[in-house]
């Protein structure tokens, strides 16, 4: 039970990461690759957040005078995730714009069929 408690969050996060990487490597459809990328980013963000958690922690906000600093979770990963989410969003939107262009140019989203450039 204890092991489960210790690692369940990491397992979830890395599960998402693996699903994302696998999707990106195996799928041929560009949209599916983008979905894989999105899952991968979500997994990484979850991992970062779970790194900073402490048991029975509270949000690091001194909203009432009585709140103590002792139980607060680590604020740094939360700040990092805020940045990482925005960066992920930026990459995602760029990828989607390329999907639009790809479809206009080639009439397909299948990456296997797009062979303009050879080795």
């Amino acid at each position, binding site marked *: 039970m204890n092991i489960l408690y210790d690692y369940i969050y990491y397992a979830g996060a890395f599960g998402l990461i693996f699903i994302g990487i696998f999707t990106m490597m195996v799928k041929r459809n560009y949209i599916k690759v983008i979905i894989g990328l999105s899952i991968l980013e979500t997994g990484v963000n979850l991992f970062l957040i*779970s790194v900073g958690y402490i048991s029975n922690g509270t949000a*690091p906000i001194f909203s009432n005078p009585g709140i103590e600093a002792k139980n607060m979770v680590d604020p740094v990963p939360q700040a990092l995730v805020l940045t990482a989410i925005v960066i992920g969003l930026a990459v995602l939107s760029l990828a989607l714009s390329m999907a*639009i262009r790809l479809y206009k140019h080639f009439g397909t989203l299948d990456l296997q069929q797009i062979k303009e450039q050879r080795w």
Partner: protein
Amino acid sequence: MRKCIGIILLIIIAWGILTSLQTMPFGVSRAKVANHYINNGKDETGAANIVTSVVINYRAFDTLGEVTVLFLSAIGLGAVLATIKTREKRDTEKASLILSTGCRFLFPPIILFGAYIFIHGHLTPGGGFQGGAIIASAFLLMYLGCHGEKRLNDRCSTFSESLGGLAFVIIGLIGLAVGTHYFLNNFMPLGKFNTLLSAGVIPIIYIAIGFKVGAELSKIIDLLMEES
């Protein structure tokens, strides 16, 4: 074939991560840096929300980069989609009365809520990015509900995104010029803790970010809706 390679690769990665995770069990204690932020952040930055003080003060340079990344993505999107000339006419059906009227009714309150979120970034969980996203969602609602009736004002969005970014950089440069001569220094008085006018430059930067993010996300939505 690719699947096999993928699975083998993933198993290797998983094994590596398992060995690595043993040294960082879940939910134990904070590190030195984080303890410093939590214990001294209140006094050093004047923000009740420690995450905000990390985002806008201790690690403000990251946030400047982050704002730039978002700017970059809006610009890149424009550049990638710029050369499309052919635009087929689509016969879109107008959204039903429920949707269009509801959107119009909700638009001002959503904007107000976004403004509330980014103005109170230093007091409550929230901030410029979240508030900006909410404002962009108001525009998204308008696009979905009243498609074709309302367009984002190009000039207006350009102004708010440029001025938002410039305000951030200029506040940083002012910090370099006055006080202790550090870039992005919190040079303004910290004020009374846990009130609206506290935490020095944090609310100002967050308002700038809120405008910028709202304008940029709306622009991204605008471009994607227009071209798709």
